[in-house]
């Protein structure tokens, strides 16, 4: 077998590696545009048919491919977060991810790390993600032209998951957006979509301003984002701040001092656990990370991208680039709840006509969860009905460290999406039993106000 010793760029030269089938190119579920975007990475792979003697690629290759499709594969040096040296000093195994050098795991295994996050807590370096602010009287109306959220209706100091849409109603990116005040919006977008998103927002900002709109933006490259998740997140963080965290609920935002540093705090995350994302001045990031780990007496552990992916999959959360793409609408992705009620009536965001039509008629495909037998289903595995006819495709899958079974997410034809529907998932050409399952796979523990 080929071992995960190397950032995959050196694997490019070996012809032992044959990538998985590109059968999905001809799938009714994915347009040619998708297959282009999925193959757009400069890691040169030509489509190979799935033969019996196909050799697996390097493991690390498979890992990074499953985590993200946005690698820097040319010789551009990888970007480093303020915590890079800290990761290495703490046993972090660094891998390329979306143009950054990020820790995929530390000394503990991905399984142990995932389980520990839910039992105690995990601290994640997510400084590769892009935080930005919109300022000005027209911040809300401006951003509402680009996202599906009802920003006007958000209480100041609260936020939500939202989706940036394109003219076809497809997803450009997903993002956690917060209305700090009526004239300040704070949002975080995916690292792999940074350039695309900033170009998109920037272009629309320019034309909005030309029409007299009062809005400007600032990209928070002077800040670093950390995620602290798990049952010990709040108790640990409480040691480091005077503000009472017990009255700060899921989705809420505060600017406050943590460990003496001026932070933006959002009670949100990507694991399904209670937790926070902390935006800290970049020069204070290491000290804050150290303080959090110390206050937890080692129970909160540095946790890498490998565990982060297992955690979000267990929580039923989409990974942009896998479960959401340019041609998939929020309705198909099961995110209709994120479309504000007023927005459903009024539209006013890119692709609204497509999305509103899907809301009325129902989408043709839907994102669902699966439990399956046999080997874990991986992204691009075909989903078939009992008679062997293709009904969909897996977009994310793996072995759940907490449930100790295979879990997967994918899209199936509407009508076959109800929980309990039996299907087959093809792994390496062989069908294995699968059943549609409600998500989240692991119950979420978001900190919500008492009823």
């Amino acid at each position, binding site marked *: *077998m*080929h*071992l*995960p*010793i*190397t*950032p995959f760029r*050196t694997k490019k030269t070996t012809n032992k590696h044959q990538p998985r089938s590109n059968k999905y190119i001809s799938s009714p579920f994915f347009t040619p545009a998708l297959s282009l975007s999925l193959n757009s990475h400069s890691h040169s792979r030509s489509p190979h048919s799935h033969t019996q*003697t*196909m*050799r*697996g690629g390097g*493991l*690390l290759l*498979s*890992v990074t491919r*499953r*985590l993200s499709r946005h690698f820097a594969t040319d010789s551009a040096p990888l970007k480093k977060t303020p915590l890079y040296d800290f990761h290495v000093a703490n046993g972090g195994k660094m891998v390329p991810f979306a143009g950054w050098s990020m820790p995929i*795991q530390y000394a503990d*295994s*991905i*399984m142990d790390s*995932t389980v520990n996050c839910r039992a105690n807590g995990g601290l994640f370096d997510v400084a590769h993600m892009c935080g930005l602010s919109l300022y000005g009287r027209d911040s809300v109306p401006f951003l509402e032209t680009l996202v599906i959220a009802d920003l006007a209706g958000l209480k100041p100091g609260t936020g939500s998951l939202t989706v940036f849409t394109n003219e076809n109603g497809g997803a450009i990116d997903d993002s956690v957006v917060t209305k700090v005040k009526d004239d300040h919006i704070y949002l975080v977008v995916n690292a792999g979509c940074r350039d695309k998103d900033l170009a998109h927002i920037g272009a629309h900002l320019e034309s909005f301003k030309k029409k007299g709109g009062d809005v400007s933006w600032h990209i928070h490259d002077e800040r670093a984002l950390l995620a602290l998740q798990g049952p010990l997140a709040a108790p640990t963080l409480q040691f480091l701040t005077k503000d009472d965290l017990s009255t700060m609920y899921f989705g809420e935002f505060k600017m406050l001092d943590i460990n003496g540093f001026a932070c933006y705090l959002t009670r949100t995350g990507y694991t399904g656990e209670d937790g926070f994302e902390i935006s800290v001045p970049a020069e204070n990031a290491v000290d804050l990370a150290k303080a959090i780990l110390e206050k937890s007496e080692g129970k909160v552990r540095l946790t890498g991208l*490998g565990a982060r*992916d*297992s955690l979000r999959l267990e929580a039923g959360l989409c990974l942009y680039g896998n479960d959401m793409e340019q041609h998939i609408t929020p309705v198909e992705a099961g995110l209709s709840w994120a479309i504000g009620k007023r927005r459903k009536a009024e539209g006013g965001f890119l692709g609204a006509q497509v999305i509103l039509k899907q809301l009325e008629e129902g989408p043709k495909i839907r994102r669902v969860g699966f439990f399956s037998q*046999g*080997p*874990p289903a*991986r992204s691009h595995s075909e989903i078939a009905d009992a008679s062997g006819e293709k009904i969909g495709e897996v977009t994310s899958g*793996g*072995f759940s*460290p907490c449930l100790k079974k295979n879990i997967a997410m994918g899209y199936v034809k509407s009508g076959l999406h109800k929980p309990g529907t039996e299907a087959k998932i093809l792994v*390496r050409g062989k069908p294995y039993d699968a059943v549609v399952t409600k998500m989240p796979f692991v119950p979420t523990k978001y900190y919500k106000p008492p009823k």
Partner: protein
Amino acid sequence: MASRVLWASRAASYLRISTFNRAFSTVLKDLKYNDTHEWVKVDGDSATVGITDHAQDHLGDVVYVELPEVGSTVAQGANFGAVESVKATSDIISPVSGEIVEVNDELSNSPGLVNASPYENGWIIKVKLNDAAELDSLMDSDKYTKFCEEEDAKH
């Protein structure tokens, strides 16, 4: 990790194994190895095949092993099954050619045996060898140890 080194070096002379420090992986002296990290133990014209300690260490927790059918044939250099970890799948490539006479069904219930005991209880298939001369193209334990060091140093 330290206790593992201690165990390894204490056991070294008794079990006739060599240890190398880098990843605390063990390499057994009596086995042969290919460059894709599988081992073979030969006994007459019968051979047992598995993946090395080095391989399981890099793979992480094995959650599933896809086993071939008894009675099917394997060819040296061709894949015959797969090992799945939490995050990735890796093909197992046979170091020898022959007919598969036995597969380790225990791995269906306990795929973790590959991690815990890669050379003993984590064996994967038993093969009736076609051509003993194939073994000459494999590495001995010293060569394999060096091979691993070089591979790791490159990256």
